[in-house]
Protein backbone atom coordinates (compact mmCIF):
# COMPACT_ATOMS: atom_id res chain seq x y z
CA UNK A 1 0.00 0.00 0.00
CA UNK A 2 1.31 3.44 -0.87
CA UNK A 3 1.05 6.03 1.85
CA UNK A 4 -0.52 9.30 0.82
CA UNK A 5 0.06 11.06 4.12
CA UNK A 6 2.47 10.37 6.94
CA UNK A 7 2.16 12.34 10.16
CA UNK A 8 5.07 11.83 12.55
CA UNK A 9 5.16 13.05 16.12
CA UNK A 10 3.23 16.29 15.58
CA UNK A 11 3.18 18.46 18.68
CA UNK A 12 1.48 21.85 18.86
CA UNK A 13 1.27 24.20 21.81
CA UNK A 14 -0.71 27.42 22.18
CA UNK A 15 1.11 29.20 24.98
CA UNK A 16 0.74 26.83 27.90
CA UNK A 17 -1.94 24.74 26.23
CA UNK A 18 -0.79 21.46 24.76
CA UNK A 19 -3.16 21.17 21.81
CA UNK A 20 -1.47 18.17 20.14
CA UNK A 21 1.03 15.72 21.63
CA UNK A 22 3.11 13.54 19.34
CA UNK A 23 0.32 12.64 16.96
CA UNK A 24 1.50 9.94 14.57
CA UNK A 25 -0.30 8.03 11.85
CA UNK A 26 -0.04 6.86 8.24
CA UNK A 27 -2.87 7.22 5.78
CA UNK A 28 -2.92 4.87 2.78
CA UNK A 29 -4.29 6.07 -0.53
CA UNK A 30 -8.02 5.67 -1.07
CA UNK A 31 -9.08 5.27 2.56
CA UNK A 32 -11.42 7.26 4.73
CA UNK A 33 -9.92 8.03 8.12
CA UNK A 34 -12.32 9.16 10.86
CA UNK A 35 -11.00 11.60 13.44
CA UNK A 36 -13.09 11.78 16.58
CA UNK A 37 -12.79 13.06 20.12
CA UNK A 38 -14.43 15.44 22.59
CA UNK A 39 -14.68 19.19 22.04
CA UNK A 40 -11.30 20.88 22.28
CA UNK A 41 -9.42 17.63 21.71
CA UNK A 42 -7.29 19.16 18.98
CA UNK A 43 -8.95 17.75 15.87
CA UNK A 44 -9.27 21.02 13.99
CA UNK A 45 -5.78 21.98 15.14
CA UNK A 46 -4.44 18.81 13.55
CA UNK A 47 -6.06 19.84 10.23
CA UNK A 48 -4.60 23.31 10.61
CA UNK A 49 -1.13 21.85 11.05
CA UNK A 50 -1.49 19.45 8.11
CA UNK A 51 -2.59 22.18 5.74
CA UNK A 52 -0.03 24.68 6.91
CA UNK A 53 -2.12 27.24 8.77
CA UNK A 54 -0.10 26.56 11.93
CA UNK A 55 3.52 25.46 12.03
CA UNK A 56 3.99 22.44 14.28
CA UNK A 57 6.32 22.82 17.26
CA UNK A 58 7.66 19.34 16.68
CA UNK A 59 7.21 16.60 14.14
CA UNK A 60 7.00 16.16 10.39
CA UNK A 61 4.36 15.77 7.73
CA UNK A 62 4.99 13.87 4.50
CA UNK A 63 2.52 14.14 1.66
CA UNK A 64 2.92 11.96 -1.42
CA UNK A 65 6.43 11.04 -0.32
CA UNK A 66 7.49 14.64 0.01
CA UNK A 67 8.39 16.38 3.22
CA UNK A 68 5.86 19.20 3.41
CA UNK A 69 6.56 20.29 6.96
CA UNK A 70 6.32 24.08 7.18
CA UNK A 71 4.55 24.49 3.83
CA UNK A 72 2.12 27.38 3.59
CA UNK A 73 -1.59 26.74 2.98
CA UNK A 74 -1.33 27.82 -0.67
CA UNK A 75 1.61 25.48 -1.19
CA UNK A 76 -0.36 22.59 0.29
CA UNK A 77 -3.27 23.45 -2.01
CA UNK A 78 -0.91 23.16 -4.97
CA UNK A 79 0.36 19.82 -3.70
CA UNK A 80 -3.19 18.49 -3.91
CA UNK A 81 -4.71 19.08 -0.49
CA UNK A 82 -8.15 20.60 -0.01
CA UNK A 83 -10.30 21.11 3.05
CA UNK A 84 -13.61 22.32 4.35
CA UNK A 85 -13.96 24.54 7.42
CA UNK A 86 -15.83 23.63 10.56
CA UNK A 87 -17.32 27.12 10.56
CA UNK A 88 -18.23 27.65 6.93
CA UNK A 89 -16.31 30.34 5.08
CA UNK A 90 -18.20 31.16 1.89
CA UNK A 91 -16.98 34.03 -0.29
CA UNK A 92 -20.23 35.84 0.42
CA UNK A 93 -20.39 38.47 -2.27
CA UNK A 94 -19.43 36.06 -5.03
CA UNK A 95 -21.86 33.69 -6.68
CA UNK A 96 -21.98 30.03 -5.75
CA UNK A 97 -20.40 29.18 -9.09
CA UNK A 98 -17.58 31.69 -8.61
CA UNK A 99 -16.85 30.22 -5.19
CA UNK A 100 -16.40 26.80 -6.72
CA UNK A 101 -14.42 28.19 -9.66
CA UNK A 102 -11.98 29.70 -7.17
CA UNK A 103 -11.43 26.19 -5.85
CA UNK A 104 -10.62 24.93 -9.34
CA UNK A 105 -8.53 27.92 -10.40
CA UNK A 106 -5.96 28.15 -7.66
CA UNK A 107 -5.56 24.57 -6.54
CA UNK A 108 -3.39 21.80 -7.87
CA UNK A 109 -4.54 21.93 -11.48
CA UNK A 110 -4.27 25.69 -11.86
CA UNK A 111 -7.05 25.99 -14.43
CA UNK A 112 -8.05 29.02 -16.45
CA UNK A 113 -11.52 30.49 -15.98
CA UNK A 114 -13.11 28.62 -18.89
CA UNK A 115 -12.09 25.19 -17.70
CA UNK A 116 -12.86 26.20 -14.10
CA UNK A 117 -16.44 27.08 -15.09
CA UNK A 118 -16.91 23.62 -16.54
CA UNK A 119 -15.52 21.93 -13.45
CA UNK A 120 -17.62 24.15 -11.19
CA UNK A 121 -20.80 23.19 -13.04
CA UNK A 122 -19.95 19.49 -12.78
CA UNK A 123 -19.12 19.65 -9.10
CA UNK A 124 -22.18 21.74 -8.30
CA UNK A 125 -24.37 19.14 -9.96
CA UNK A 126 -22.59 16.45 -7.97
CA UNK A 127 -23.39 18.11 -4.62
CA UNK A 128 -26.85 19.12 -5.89
CA UNK A 129 -26.32 22.83 -5.73
CA UNK A 130 -26.59 23.40 -9.49
CA UNK A 131 -29.91 25.17 -9.04
CA UNK A 132 -28.20 27.84 -6.95
CA UNK A 133 -25.16 28.45 -9.14
CA UNK A 134 -25.97 32.06 -9.99
CA UNK A 135 -27.03 33.16 -6.50
CA UNK A 136 -24.73 34.90 -4.10
CA UNK A 137 -23.12 32.52 -1.63
CA UNK A 138 -24.47 34.63 1.23
CA UNK A 139 -28.03 33.67 0.24
CA UNK A 140 -27.55 29.96 0.99
CA UNK A 141 -28.77 28.29 4.17
CA UNK A 142 -26.39 26.43 6.48
CA UNK A 143 -26.85 23.01 4.90
CA UNK A 144 -26.25 24.49 1.46
CA UNK A 145 -23.19 26.38 2.67
CA UNK A 146 -21.75 23.10 3.94
CA UNK A 147 -22.25 21.61 0.51
CA UNK A 148 -20.65 24.67 -1.03
CA UNK A 149 -17.57 24.17 1.15
CA UNK A 150 -17.49 20.61 -0.08
CA UNK A 151 -17.91 21.61 -3.72
CA UNK A 152 -15.16 24.21 -3.51
CA UNK A 153 -12.76 21.69 -2.03
CA UNK A 154 -13.68 19.05 -4.62
CA UNK A 155 -13.27 21.44 -7.52
CA UNK A 156 -9.55 21.52 -6.73
CA UNK A 157 -9.50 17.79 -7.60
CA UNK A 158 -7.41 17.07 -4.50
CA UNK A 159 -5.57 13.88 -3.66
CA UNK A 160 -6.49 14.35 -0.01
CA UNK A 161 -9.63 15.97 1.30
CA UNK A 162 -9.94 17.13 4.91
CA UNK A 163 -13.57 17.35 6.05
CA UNK A 164 -14.16 19.22 9.31
CA UNK A 165 -17.62 18.38 10.68
CA UNK A 166 -19.51 18.57 7.40
CA UNK A 167 -22.49 16.90 9.08
CA UNK A 168 -22.79 19.22 12.09
CA UNK A 169 -26.04 21.15 12.15
CA UNK A 170 -27.70 19.09 9.41
CA UNK A 171 -31.01 17.29 9.83
CA UNK A 172 -31.21 13.50 9.36
CA UNK A 173 -32.15 13.61 5.70
CA UNK A 174 -29.44 16.16 4.95
CA UNK A 175 -26.96 13.94 6.82
CA UNK A 176 -27.96 10.94 4.73
CA UNK A 177 -27.45 12.86 1.51
CA UNK A 178 -24.09 14.24 2.65
CA UNK A 179 -22.90 10.74 3.65
CA UNK A 180 -23.81 9.56 0.14
CA UNK A 181 -21.71 12.39 -1.29
CA UNK A 182 -18.74 11.41 0.88
CA UNK A 183 -18.97 7.80 -0.23
CA UNK A 184 -19.15 8.89 -3.85
CA UNK A 185 -16.05 11.01 -3.44
CA UNK A 186 -14.17 8.03 -2.15
CA UNK A 187 -15.34 6.00 -5.15
CA UNK A 188 -13.56 8.57 -7.28
CA UNK A 189 -10.31 7.64 -5.56
CA UNK A 190 -9.97 10.65 -3.27
CA UNK A 191 -8.50 9.94 0.17
CA UNK A 192 -10.39 11.54 3.03
CA UNK A 193 -9.86 12.48 6.66
CA UNK A 194 -13.15 13.24 8.32
CA UNK A 195 -13.67 14.95 11.68
CA UNK A 196 -17.12 14.12 12.92
CA UNK A 197 -19.27 14.08 16.03
CA UNK A 198 -22.15 12.25 14.37
CA UNK A 199 -20.96 8.80 15.48
CA UNK A 200 -23.25 6.71 13.44
CA UNK A 201 -22.14 8.32 10.22
CA UNK A 202 -18.45 8.28 10.96
CA UNK A 203 -18.54 4.63 12.08
CA UNK A 204 -20.40 3.83 8.94
CA UNK A 205 -18.09 5.40 6.34
CA UNK A 206 -14.61 5.21 7.92
CA UNK A 207 -12.10 2.49 7.12
CA UNK A 208 -10.17 3.43 10.22
CA UNK A 209 -10.65 5.80 13.13
CA UNK A 210 -8.28 7.77 15.35
CA UNK A 211 -9.46 9.11 18.69
CA UNK A 212 -7.94 12.28 20.15
CA UNK A 213 -8.41 13.39 23.74
CA UNK A 214 -6.64 16.48 25.12
CA UNK A 215 -4.25 16.35 22.18
CA UNK A 216 -3.31 12.73 22.87
CA UNK A 217 -3.98 9.93 20.45
CA UNK A 218 -5.78 7.52 22.79
CA UNK A 219 -6.91 4.93 20.28
CA UNK A 220 -6.67 3.87 16.66
CA UNK A 221 -8.38 1.05 14.81
CA UNK A 222 -11.35 -0.11 12.79
CA UNK A 223 -14.75 1.32 13.71
CA UNK A 224 -15.56 -2.00 15.40
CA UNK A 225 -12.43 -1.85 17.57
CA UNK A 226 -12.95 1.79 18.48
CA UNK A 227 -16.56 1.30 19.49
CA UNK A 228 -15.51 -1.42 21.92
CA UNK A 229 -12.38 0.24 23.28
CA UNK A 230 -12.85 0.90 27.02
CA UNK A 231 -10.63 4.02 26.92
CA UNK A 232 -12.70 5.53 24.14
CA UNK A 233 -15.93 4.70 25.87
CA UNK A 234 -14.69 6.41 29.01
CA UNK A 235 -13.26 9.49 27.34
CA UNK A 236 -15.79 10.09 24.66
CA UNK A 237 -18.62 7.72 23.91
CA UNK A 238 -19.76 7.47 27.54
CA UNK A 239 -22.40 4.76 27.37
CA UNK A 240 -20.93 1.28 26.71
CA UNK A 241 -24.18 0.21 25.11
CA UNK A 242 -23.96 3.20 22.77
CA UNK A 243 -21.22 1.45 20.86
CA UNK A 244 -23.45 -1.45 19.94
CA UNK A 245 -26.26 0.88 18.98
CA UNK A 246 -23.95 2.82 16.74
CA UNK A 247 -22.70 -0.21 14.94
CA UNK A 248 -26.12 -1.53 14.00
CA UNK A 249 -27.21 -0.91 10.48
CA UNK A 250 -30.59 0.71 10.07
Amino acid at each position, binding site marked *: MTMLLQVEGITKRFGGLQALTKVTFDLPEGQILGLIGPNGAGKTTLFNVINGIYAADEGRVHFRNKNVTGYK*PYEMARQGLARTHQIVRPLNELTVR*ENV*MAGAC*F*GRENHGLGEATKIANEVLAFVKLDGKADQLASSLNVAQKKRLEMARALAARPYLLLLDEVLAGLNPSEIASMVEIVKNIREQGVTIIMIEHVMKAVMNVSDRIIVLDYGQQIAEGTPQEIANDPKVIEAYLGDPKLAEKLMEED
Partner: protein
Amino acid sequence: MKKWLNPGLWITLLITVAIGIWPIITQEAAKREVIFTVLMAIVFASSLNILLGYTGYVSFGHVVFFGLGGYVGMYLIKEYEASIWLAALAGGIAAGLLAFLLGKAILKLRGAYFALVTIGVNEAMRAFVNNFQPFGGPIGLELNFKVYKPYGGPADALWMVYYATFALAILVAVLSYAVKQSKFGLSLMAIREDEDAAEVMGVVPHNAKTWAFILSAILPGVVGVLFFFKNGNIEPAGAFRLHYSIENLVMVMLGGQGTVLGPVLGAFGYQRLRGFLVTNPIFKNIQLSIAGGLLLLIVLFIPAGAVGWLRNRFPRLRRVLS
Protein backbone atom coordinates in the same frame (compact mmCIF):
# COMPACT_ATOMS: atom_id res chain seq x y z
CA MET B 1 -14.43 36.45 -26.98
CA LYS B 2 -17.88 36.67 -25.49
CA LYS B 3 -16.90 38.62 -22.43
CA TRP B 4 -15.85 41.62 -24.51
CA LEU B 5 -19.40 41.90 -25.81
CA ASN B 6 -20.75 42.21 -22.29
CA PRO B 7 -22.97 45.27 -21.77
CA GLY B 8 -21.22 45.77 -18.41
CA LEU B 9 -18.17 47.01 -20.30
CA TRP B 10 -20.00 48.91 -23.03
CA ILE B 11 -22.29 50.82 -20.71
CA THR B 12 -19.29 51.99 -18.71
CA LEU B 13 -17.41 53.01 -21.85
CA LEU B 14 -20.44 54.78 -23.27
CA ILE B 15 -20.94 56.81 -20.11
CA THR B 16 -17.25 57.68 -19.93
CA VAL B 17 -17.26 58.80 -23.56
CA ALA B 18 -20.46 60.78 -23.06
CA ILE B 19 -18.84 62.64 -20.16
CA GLY B 20 -15.57 63.31 -21.95
CA ILE B 21 -16.87 64.28 -25.38
CA TRP B 22 -19.04 67.14 -24.20
CA PRO B 23 -16.35 69.88 -24.03
CA ILE B 24 -14.85 68.61 -27.29
CA ILE B 25 -18.10 69.26 -29.07
CA THR B 26 -18.67 72.67 -27.57
CA GLN B 27 -14.95 73.57 -27.61
CA GLU B 28 -15.39 75.63 -24.44
CA ALA B 29 -12.34 76.00 -22.23
CA ALA B 30 -14.41 76.46 -19.07
CA LYS B 31 -16.33 73.25 -19.62
CA ARG B 32 -13.11 71.49 -20.44
CA GLU B 33 -11.69 72.44 -17.06
CA VAL B 34 -14.76 71.11 -15.25
CA ILE B 35 -14.75 67.83 -17.12
CA PHE B 36 -10.98 67.50 -16.83
CA THR B 37 -11.44 67.25 -13.07
CA VAL B 38 -14.11 64.62 -13.56
CA LEU B 39 -11.96 62.54 -15.93
CA MET B 40 -9.00 62.76 -13.60
CA ALA B 41 -11.22 61.56 -10.77
CA ILE B 42 -12.48 58.69 -12.93
CA VAL B 43 -8.89 57.56 -13.49
CA PHE B 44 -7.98 57.93 -9.84
CA ALA B 45 -11.17 56.44 -8.39
CA SER B 46 -11.28 53.48 -10.80
CA SER B 47 -7.65 52.70 -10.00
CA LEU B 48 -8.30 52.94 -6.29
CA ASN B 49 -11.27 50.64 -6.82
CA ILE B 50 -8.95 47.80 -7.86
CA LEU B 51 -7.48 47.87 -4.39
CA LEU B 52 -10.48 49.06 -2.39
CA GLY B 53 -13.35 47.47 -4.25
CA TYR B 54 -11.84 44.29 -5.69
CA THR B 55 -9.28 43.43 -3.02
CA GLY B 56 -10.90 44.97 0.05
CA TYR B 57 -7.92 47.04 1.21
CA VAL B 58 -8.56 50.67 2.09
CA SER B 59 -5.78 53.02 1.05
CA PHE B 60 -6.34 56.49 2.53
CA GLY B 61 -2.99 57.78 1.39
CA HIS B 62 -3.38 56.81 -2.27
CA VAL B 63 -2.63 60.39 -3.33
CA VAL B 64 1.02 59.60 -2.61
CA PHE B 65 1.17 57.93 -6.06
CA PHE B 66 -0.38 60.96 -7.71
CA GLY B 67 2.09 63.26 -5.97
CA LEU B 68 5.17 61.17 -6.55
CA GLY B 69 4.27 60.56 -10.19
CA GLY B 70 3.71 64.28 -10.62
CA TYR B 71 7.07 65.14 -9.10
CA VAL B 72 9.04 62.62 -11.12
CA GLY B 73 7.39 63.79 -14.36
CA MET B 74 7.83 67.47 -13.59
CA TYR B 75 11.45 66.92 -12.66
CA LEU B 76 12.16 65.21 -15.98
CA ILE B 77 10.37 67.92 -17.94
CA LYS B 78 12.11 70.74 -16.12
CA GLU B 79 15.63 69.37 -15.81
CA TYR B 80 15.90 67.19 -18.91
CA GLU B 81 13.32 68.75 -21.20
CA ALA B 82 11.66 65.37 -21.47
CA SER B 83 8.49 65.20 -23.55
CA ILE B 84 5.21 65.04 -21.64
CA TRP B 85 4.68 61.48 -22.87
CA LEU B 86 7.99 60.24 -21.57
CA ALA B 87 7.42 62.11 -18.32
CA ALA B 88 3.94 60.61 -17.92
CA LEU B 89 5.35 57.15 -18.48
CA ALA B 90 8.09 57.77 -15.94
CA GLY B 91 5.56 59.08 -13.41
CA GLY B 92 3.51 55.91 -13.81
CA ILE B 93 6.57 53.71 -13.43
CA ALA B 94 7.72 55.60 -10.34
CA ALA B 95 4.28 55.18 -8.75
CA GLY B 96 4.22 51.48 -9.62
CA LEU B 97 7.70 51.00 -8.22
CA LEU B 98 6.77 52.70 -4.96
CA ALA B 99 3.69 50.46 -4.71
CA PHE B 100 5.86 47.43 -5.30
CA LEU B 101 8.30 48.37 -2.54
CA LEU B 102 5.54 49.36 -0.14
CA GLY B 103 3.51 46.29 -0.98
CA LYS B 104 6.19 43.97 0.29
CA ALA B 105 6.29 45.86 3.56
CA ILE B 106 2.77 46.95 4.41
CA LEU B 107 0.35 44.62 2.65
CA LYS B 108 0.89 42.12 5.45
CA LEU B 109 -1.18 44.47 7.59
CA ARG B 110 -4.90 44.04 7.51
CA GLY B 111 -7.92 46.26 7.93
CA ALA B 112 -7.50 49.49 9.85
CA TYR B 113 -3.75 48.99 10.30
CA PHE B 114 -3.15 49.02 6.58
CA ALA B 115 -5.40 52.06 6.12
CA LEU B 116 -3.55 53.98 8.83
CA VAL B 117 -0.12 53.12 7.51
CA THR B 118 -1.02 54.42 4.05
CA ILE B 119 -1.73 57.81 5.63
CA GLY B 120 1.66 57.65 7.30
CA VAL B 121 3.34 56.83 4.01
CA ASN B 122 1.80 59.87 2.33
CA GLU B 123 2.79 62.18 5.18
CA ALA B 124 6.31 60.75 5.22
CA MET B 125 6.63 61.28 1.47
CA ARG B 126 5.46 64.86 1.80
CA ALA B 127 8.00 65.50 4.55
CA PHE B 128 10.73 63.87 2.47
CA VAL B 129 9.96 65.92 -0.65
CA ASN B 130 9.79 69.05 1.46
CA ASN B 131 13.46 68.50 2.27
CA PHE B 132 14.56 67.06 -1.04
CA GLN B 133 16.46 69.75 -2.92
CA PRO B 134 16.37 68.23 -6.43
CA PHE B 135 12.55 68.51 -6.20
CA GLY B 136 12.85 72.09 -5.01
CA GLY B 137 12.16 71.45 -1.34
CA PRO B 138 9.21 73.40 0.07
CA ILE B 139 9.04 75.63 -3.02
CA GLY B 140 8.64 72.78 -5.47
CA LEU B 141 9.18 72.93 -9.22
CA GLU B 142 7.91 75.50 -11.67
CA LEU B 143 7.86 75.06 -15.43
CA ASN B 144 8.97 77.71 -17.82
CA PHE B 145 6.37 78.73 -20.41
CA LYS B 146 8.59 77.54 -23.20
CA VAL B 147 8.02 73.86 -22.31
CA TYR B 148 4.56 74.19 -23.91
CA LYS B 149 6.04 75.36 -27.21
CA PRO B 150 6.51 71.93 -28.79
CA TYR B 151 2.80 71.29 -28.24
CA GLY B 152 1.70 74.44 -30.04
CA GLY B 153 1.76 76.77 -27.03
CA PRO B 154 -0.11 76.72 -23.70
CA ALA B 155 -3.62 76.80 -25.13
CA ASP B 156 -3.09 73.78 -27.37
CA ALA B 157 -1.15 71.99 -24.64
CA LEU B 158 -4.19 72.26 -22.36
CA TRP B 159 -6.36 70.61 -24.98
CA MET B 160 -3.76 67.95 -25.54
CA VAL B 161 -3.62 67.14 -21.83
CA TYR B 162 -7.38 66.96 -21.88
CA TYR B 163 -7.40 64.42 -24.71
CA ALA B 164 -4.74 62.37 -22.96
CA THR B 165 -6.74 62.29 -19.73
CA PHE B 166 -9.84 61.34 -21.67
CA ALA B 167 -7.90 58.45 -23.22
CA LEU B 168 -6.73 57.37 -19.77
CA ALA B 169 -10.31 57.40 -18.48
CA ILE B 170 -11.30 55.05 -21.29
CA LEU B 171 -8.24 52.90 -20.65
CA VAL B 172 -9.01 52.63 -16.95
CA ALA B 173 -12.56 51.47 -17.68
CA VAL B 174 -11.25 48.72 -19.96
CA LEU B 175 -8.59 47.81 -17.40
CA SER B 176 -11.10 47.63 -14.53
CA TYR B 177 -13.31 45.41 -16.60
CA ALA B 178 -10.48 43.17 -17.79
CA VAL B 179 -9.18 42.72 -14.25
CA LYS B 180 -12.62 41.97 -12.89
CA GLN B 181 -13.27 39.32 -15.54
CA SER B 182 -9.90 37.62 -15.11
CA LYS B 183 -8.58 34.86 -12.95
CA PHE B 184 -6.40 37.44 -11.23
CA GLY B 185 -9.57 39.41 -10.46
CA LEU B 186 -11.17 36.32 -8.98
CA SER B 187 -8.18 35.90 -6.69
CA LEU B 188 -8.52 39.53 -5.56
CA MET B 189 -12.21 39.14 -4.82
CA ALA B 190 -11.56 35.89 -2.96
CA ILE B 191 -9.03 37.78 -0.83
CA ARG B 192 -11.58 40.52 -0.20
CA GLU B 193 -14.19 38.05 0.95
CA ASP B 194 -11.92 35.91 3.13
CA GLU B 195 -8.16 36.14 2.81
CA ASP B 196 -7.42 33.02 4.87
CA ALA B 197 -9.94 30.89 3.02
CA ALA B 198 -8.50 32.16 -0.28
CA GLU B 199 -5.04 31.08 0.80
CA VAL B 200 -6.34 27.63 1.68
CA MET B 201 -7.69 27.38 -1.88
CA GLY B 202 -4.23 28.14 -3.25
CA VAL B 203 -4.31 31.89 -3.81
CA VAL B 204 -0.92 33.40 -2.96
CA PRO B 205 -2.20 36.46 -1.09
CA HIS B 206 0.97 38.54 -0.96
CA ASN B 207 1.56 38.23 -4.70
CA ALA B 208 -2.01 39.01 -5.66
CA LYS B 209 -2.23 41.96 -3.27
CA THR B 210 1.07 43.42 -4.42
CA TRP B 211 -0.05 43.28 -8.06
CA ALA B 212 -3.36 44.90 -7.17
CA PHE B 213 -1.52 47.66 -5.35
CA ILE B 214 0.83 48.23 -8.29
CA LEU B 215 -2.05 48.32 -10.77
CA SER B 216 -3.94 50.76 -8.59
CA ALA B 217 -0.91 53.07 -8.36
CA ILE B 218 0.27 53.38 -11.96
CA LEU B 219 -2.49 55.45 -13.53
CA PRO B 220 -2.77 57.88 -10.60
CA GLY B 221 0.96 58.42 -11.11
CA VAL B 222 0.46 59.11 -14.84
CA VAL B 223 -2.46 61.42 -14.23
CA GLY B 224 -0.39 63.26 -11.62
CA VAL B 225 2.13 64.18 -14.31
CA LEU B 226 -0.61 65.42 -16.66
CA PHE B 227 -2.25 67.47 -13.94
CA PHE B 228 0.89 69.25 -12.75
CA PHE B 229 2.17 69.75 -16.28
CA LYS B 230 -1.07 71.53 -17.04
CA ASN B 231 -0.75 73.48 -13.80
CA GLY B 232 2.79 74.55 -14.55
CA ASN B 233 4.02 74.03 -11.02
CA ILE B 234 4.08 71.46 -8.24
CA GLU B 235 4.74 71.87 -4.54
CA PRO B 236 4.55 69.42 -1.61
CA ALA B 237 1.35 70.74 -0.05
CA GLY B 238 -0.50 70.51 -3.37
CA ALA B 239 0.93 67.18 -4.44
CA PHE B 240 0.23 65.14 -1.32
CA ARG B 241 -3.18 66.47 -0.31
CA LEU B 242 -4.60 63.76 1.89
CA HIS B 243 -8.13 64.98 1.39
CA TYR B 244 -7.88 64.28 -2.33
CA SER B 245 -7.43 60.59 -1.48
CA ILE B 246 -10.39 60.72 0.82
CA GLU B 247 -12.59 62.45 -1.73
CA ASN B 248 -11.72 59.70 -4.20
CA LEU B 249 -12.63 57.13 -1.61
CA VAL B 250 -16.01 58.81 -1.30
CA MET B 251 -16.44 58.65 -5.07
CA VAL B 252 -15.75 54.92 -5.15
CA MET B 253 -18.12 54.28 -2.26
CA LEU B 254 -20.79 56.54 -3.73
CA GLY B 255 -20.79 54.86 -7.12
CA GLY B 256 -20.28 51.34 -5.82
CA GLN B 257 -17.05 49.72 -4.74
CA GLY B 258 -16.05 46.60 -6.59
CA THR B 259 -18.08 47.48 -9.70
CA VAL B 260 -16.66 48.74 -12.99
CA LEU B 261 -19.26 51.43 -13.56
CA GLY B 262 -19.45 52.61 -9.93
CA PRO B 263 -16.29 54.73 -9.74
CA VAL B 264 -17.18 56.41 -13.05
CA LEU B 265 -20.63 57.43 -11.83
CA GLY B 266 -19.27 58.23 -8.39
CA ALA B 267 -16.57 60.50 -9.81
CA PHE B 268 -19.06 62.30 -12.01
CA GLY B 269 -21.68 62.66 -9.27
CA TYR B 270 -19.24 63.76 -6.61
CA GLN B 271 -17.43 66.28 -8.80
CA ARG B 272 -20.71 67.80 -9.93
CA LEU B 273 -21.78 68.09 -6.31
CA ARG B 274 -18.43 69.54 -5.35
CA GLY B 275 -18.59 72.02 -8.21
CA PHE B 276 -21.96 73.19 -6.94
CA LEU B 277 -20.74 73.46 -3.36
CA VAL B 278 -17.54 75.40 -3.98
CA THR B 279 -19.36 77.99 -6.06
CA ASN B 280 -22.13 78.37 -3.53
CA PRO B 281 -21.41 81.08 -0.93
CA ILE B 282 -23.08 79.15 1.89
CA PHE B 283 -21.38 75.81 1.34
CA LYS B 284 -18.03 76.76 -0.10
CA ASN B 285 -16.15 76.61 3.20
CA ILE B 286 -17.70 73.40 4.45
CA GLN B 287 -17.34 71.48 1.22
CA LEU B 288 -15.08 68.85 2.82
CA SER B 289 -17.36 68.37 5.80
CA ILE B 290 -20.11 67.60 3.35
CA ALA B 291 -17.88 64.99 1.69
CA GLY B 292 -17.31 63.46 5.15
CA GLY B 293 -21.01 63.50 5.94
CA LEU B 294 -21.75 61.91 2.59
CA LEU B 295 -19.26 59.13 3.28
CA LEU B 296 -20.93 58.47 6.62
CA LEU B 297 -24.37 58.28 5.03
CA ILE B 298 -23.18 55.92 2.31
CA VAL B 299 -21.44 53.59 4.74
CA LEU B 300 -24.50 53.53 6.99
CA PHE B 301 -27.28 53.27 4.44
CA ILE B 302 -26.00 52.13 1.05
CA PRO B 303 -22.66 50.46 1.75
CA ALA B 304 -22.76 48.88 -1.72
CA GLY B 305 -22.98 52.31 -3.39
CA ALA B 306 -25.35 53.29 -6.20
CA VAL B 307 -24.44 50.57 -8.69
CA GLY B 308 -24.13 47.94 -5.96
CA TRP B 309 -27.53 48.90 -4.64
CA LEU B 310 -29.09 48.58 -8.08
CA ARG B 311 -27.47 45.19 -8.58
CA ASN B 312 -28.73 43.94 -5.26
CA ARG B 313 -32.18 45.41 -5.63
CA PHE B 314 -32.71 44.22 -9.20
CA PRO B 315 -30.71 41.01 -9.71
CA ARG B 316 -31.52 41.10 -13.42
CA LEU B 317 -29.34 44.18 -13.73
CA ARG B 318 -26.33 42.06 -12.78
CA ARG B 319 -26.06 41.04 -16.40
CA VAL B 320 -25.85 44.59 -17.72
CA LEU B 321 -24.14 46.46 -14.85
CA SER B 322 -20.71 45.16 -14.18
